[in-house]
C-alpha cells in the first residue's frame, strides 16, 4: 500500500485540492484556516468550507465559489488525513468526479459527473492531467478511469 503525503496534493490539478493541502498544514500547526470566518467571498476564490479534527484524523472540505457559480456546479475537494497521510479524498472538477480510498479501493477512480449541467463546458484536459499526477506518485488508476481517459477526446 502506498503512502500519499499531503505534499502530493500541492501539484494536484485542482485549486480546491491545493487549498485543502495548505489548510491541512494550517490545521497541523494549530491554526483554523482563515476563510472559514470570512464567509463566501464576492469574487472567485476557493473557500475552506469545513474542517473536522478528531483524535486520529483530520478532514477538510474546500469549495470553489464565485458570483457566477451555482452551488451544484461548484468544484469541491474533500480529504481525510490520518497521521499526515492522505487516506481518502473525493472531489468534482469541470465535469469530472474523482475519488480515492486507501482502505476501500486504493485506486484513483475518475468518471464523468452525471449531474454536471450541459450548459457548462467540460475540461477535457483534466482527466489527462490527473492521470499524469497519479502516475507520478505511483497511484494506481481504476480500469474505468483508463477507459474514461481513453474516451475523453470525444467528451461532450
Amino acid at each position, binding site marked *: 500500500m502506498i503512502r500519499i503525503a499531503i505534499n502530493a496534493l500541492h501539484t494536484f490539478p485542482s485549486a480546491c485540492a491545493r487549498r485543502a493541502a495548505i489548510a491541512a498544514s494550517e*490545521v497541523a500547526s*494549530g*491554526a*483554523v484556516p*482563515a476563510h*472559514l*470566518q470570512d*464567509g463566501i467571498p464576492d469574487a472567485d476564490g476557493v473557500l475552506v*468550507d*469545513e*474542517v*473536522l*479534527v*478528531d*483524535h486520529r484524523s483530520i478532514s477538510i472540505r474546500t469549495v470553489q465559489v464565485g458570483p457566477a457559480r451555482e452551488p451544484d456546479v461548484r468544484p469541491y475537494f474533500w480529504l481525510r488525513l490520518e497521521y499526515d497521510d492522505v487516506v481518502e479524498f473525493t472531489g468534482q472538477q469541470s465535469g469530472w468526479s474523482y475519488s480515492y480510498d486507501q482502505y476501500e479501493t486504493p485506486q484513483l477512480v475518475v468518471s464523468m459527473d452525471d449531474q454536471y449541467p450541459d450548459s457548462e463546458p467540460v475540461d477535457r484536459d483534466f482527466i489527462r492531467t490527473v492521470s499524469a499526477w497519479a502516475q507520478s506518485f505511483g497511484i494506481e488508476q481504476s480500469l474505468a478511469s483508463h477507459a474514461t481517459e481513453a474516451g475523453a477526446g470525444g467528451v461532450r
Partner: protein
Amino acid sequence: MKLSDLTDFPAACARLSAWAAEQILSGSLPRVGSDGSALPYLYSASVREDEVAVTVRSPRLVGDEHAHCLLIANGHRVTSLWGLTPSGVKYWLMGETVYSVQGPSVFDAAIDCGERDVIPLIADWAQRHHIQVSPLVRVTAEAATISACSPPPLEGN
C-alpha cells in the same frame, strides 16, 4: 446562552468545550487528543462557516461510557449542549433552558457528596447567569440540599 456563560459551569468538560470553541472562533485550534493524564481533553472539533462543534471527553468512565460534553455554537451563541459528568449527572440545553437528570450512579455509595451536588450547582450557575432551568433541576436541587448530602443525624439526645 453565550459561550462565556459556561466559563463557570459546574462540569469540567463543558468549561473545556466552551474554551475550545472560543479558541477556534479566534482562529486557533487547540490540541486534540488526550495527553495521558486523568484530565478531560478535546476529542473532536469541527468548523463550518460560523458553526463550531466540539466534543470533550474525560478518561473517567460512568458505567460503560466516558464522561463527556458535546457543544455546538453559532458564533459565540451556544445552540446545543449535552453532557455527562463523572458522577453520572446528565445535562443538556434545549432552547434557552438547561435540563438535567441524575443517573443511577449518583446514588452509588462510593460517590461522595461533592459529586452529588452537581445539580444544585447547575441551578446556582443558571441563577447567576439568568438562564432558565427545568422544573426537575429546581426540584432536584432543593431535594439534594435536604437529603443527599446532609451529614448523618446525631444519635442520642
